[in-house]
């Protein structure tokens, strides 16, 4: 007992005598690590992990930065629980988020508690309207549809579209946008089919696509489901041009032989740029993960780096790192040097990029054209 008391007293003296270390800083990371969209967990978080490594190596902040990752399964309900934990228990001022449904579910919690939420993966157009604490570092789906569909109609001559869309906020917004764009450019939406987010059997759907006479089919889904749709469409005799959006930019979709020739969109990021931020990111990403970075990796690297830039500026002024202060600092600074160059936010908290229309060829994406969206 005496030994324990002496040890405790000695430990207390040592603790009091040691100079106070800078306080470590934690931000949140809401990604799917299980369920049908689990493949995105690793893809989305890898850019953020590299950013944390760079931020800590450069000692940008007074303490060590870390990300508290929470598994959302890409579903709103687990995401709300995870967000409550980040806000109430870990008291983070800033969190990375992904997926449209998840982001819409957590936005009121973040806004109420003045926590900045930054999205680099969800593309539902509604994400531009979730309040000033919600930021996007990815172009939203309405912009992607405006880039790919005119290209397919005008350059490839495909005018009869079938749409397969997941029954959630993302799918609904793509349907609305597609209807509008096709009307503008003289194409026809000959068939539209909504699917449950959990559906896995699509051979019947393929029969409906075939009978509609569509020469192009837009797939507005994500995760394992979008790849299953593509495979089953091809297996069941659908030879129409397949089109999708940035969720297609994952290895699962690229590596599927049935996806050869499929077209998808992604924000244009000049990874060949000579600025030091981009060069360092590209070189270190290749060294760390053994492959070229994809747009999602860039987005979450940028999102995490943006936090560090803002927090560093706040610390330099002796201000506390809170969501409200981060928001005020972003508005004050205006533009940022991130991967891809110097970027500025729109008033609604969204970064605007040109959009690449890409085609899958031999398991890789080749850019067909780059479209400036206004």
């Amino acid at each position, binding site marked *: 007992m005496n030994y324990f008391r002496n040890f405790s007293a000695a430990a207390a003296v040592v603790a009091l005598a040691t100079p106070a270390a800078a306080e470590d800083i934690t931000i949140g990371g809401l990604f799917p690590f*299980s369920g049908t969209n*689990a493949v995105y967990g690793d893809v989305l978080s890898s850019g953020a992990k590299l950013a944390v490594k760079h931020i800590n190596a450069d000692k940008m902040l007074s303490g060590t930065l870390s990300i508290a990752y929470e598994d959302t399964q890409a579903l709103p309900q687990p995401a709300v629980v995870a967000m409550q934990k980040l806000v109430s228990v870990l008291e983070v001022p800033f969190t990375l988020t992904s997926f449209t449904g998840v982001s819409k579910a957590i936005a009121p919690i973040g806004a109420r508690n003045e926590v900045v939420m930054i999205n680099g993966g969800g593309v539902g157009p509604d994400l531009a309207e979730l309040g000033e604490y919600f930021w996007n570092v990815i172009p939203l789906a309405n912009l992607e549809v405006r880039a790919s569909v005119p290209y397919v109609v005008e350059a490839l001559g495909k005018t009869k579209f079938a749409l397969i869309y997941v029954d959630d906020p993302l799918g609904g917004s793509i349907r609305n946008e597609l209807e509008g764009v096709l009307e503008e450019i003289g194409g026809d939406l000959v068939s539209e089919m909504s699917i449950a987010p959990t559906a896995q059997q699509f051979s019947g759907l393929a029969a409906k696509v075939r009978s509609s006479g569509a020469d192009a089919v837009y797939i507005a889904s994500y995760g394992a489901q979008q790849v299953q749709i593509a495979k089953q469409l091809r297996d069941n005799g659908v030879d129409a041009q397949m089109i999708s959006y940035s969720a297609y930019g994952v290895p699962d979709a690229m590596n599927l032989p049935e996806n050869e020739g499929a077209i998808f969109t992604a924000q244009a990021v000049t990874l060949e740029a000579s600025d030091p931020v981009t060069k360092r990111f590209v070189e270190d990403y290749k060294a760390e993960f053994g492959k070229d970075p994809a747009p999602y990796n860039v987005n979450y690297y940028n999102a995490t780096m943006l936090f560090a830039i803002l927090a560093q500026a706040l610390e330099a002024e002796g201000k506390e790192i809170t969501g409200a202060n981060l928001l005020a600092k972003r508005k004050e600074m205006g533009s940022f040097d991130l991967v891809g160059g110097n970027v500025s936010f729109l008033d609604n908290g969204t970064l605007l990029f040109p959009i690449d229309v890409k085609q899958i060829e031999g398991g890789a994406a080749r850019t067909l054209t780059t479209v400036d969206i206004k």
Partner: protein
Amino acid sequence: MLALQLTLTGLQAGALYALTAVGFSLIFGSTRVFHFAHGATFTLAAYLFYAVEAAGYGFVPGLITSFAGAIIFGLAIDWFIYRPIQRDEGSFFTVFVASFGIGIVVQNLIGIIFGRSFVTITSPLTRSRELLEGVYVAPLAGIAFVVALVCLGALGIFLRSTFTGKGLRALSDDPELVRVFGLSPRRLSAAAFVIGSALVVPSAIFTSMSTGLNPAIGHHIMLISLAATIVGGIGSIPGTMIAAFIFGLAENLSLLWFEPQWSEAVVFAILFAAIIARPSGLVAKSAAH
């Protein structure tokens, strides 16, 4: 033509559902264990086949590994999870929660071992050919249908003609009586897990080739199996088989009138209607046995 096409795809889906659902029904009917981890057996069998096939060993070694893995997994759960729980308190719900938990653990372990990505086995058998104008059928669909009928027919003969089969049918009614006739309820329970787990293997293999795999794939098929077991009549093998085919057809033919997002809802609408109209199931248990 669309109706004919959807009927054919419905029969294929029904055949795959029937194999999994009948395995679940056999285990539940014989042992009264709500084996929700049957979905995990399905996923495990599919991934084992994929692993062997992707490693270049070919179809037959993949098939054998898949059968061995599914059977060992089913037996291991019975021996090391269900029996100790039943020995201590025997609560139906404790066993159910344990089974549910196993499903989640297996799903995550598969994700860790095989990755969380979508995987598939490319085969010319999955490519449809146009039989009639506008009607496409893949060779795999026909194979799946025939294999399902053969497996289910063989199971029916086994249950009606063999001593063990008759024991399995009697087990849920009166384990004591089974003992009097010189059969061990434990051995029969093990036999139920062996046969039930083995039945998912053809379905798992066909699914890995036709729709592809991800670690969560067992969940949907388990829900359908559960619904088919209830609609068919709990413990009724013929009833479960008929219900599974009805679900496969309903899922696909519903596309003639409804959006695809309602296809799963149609299955559960049938479930509710069946429960209200015929609570004992399509095939009464006495007839089933």
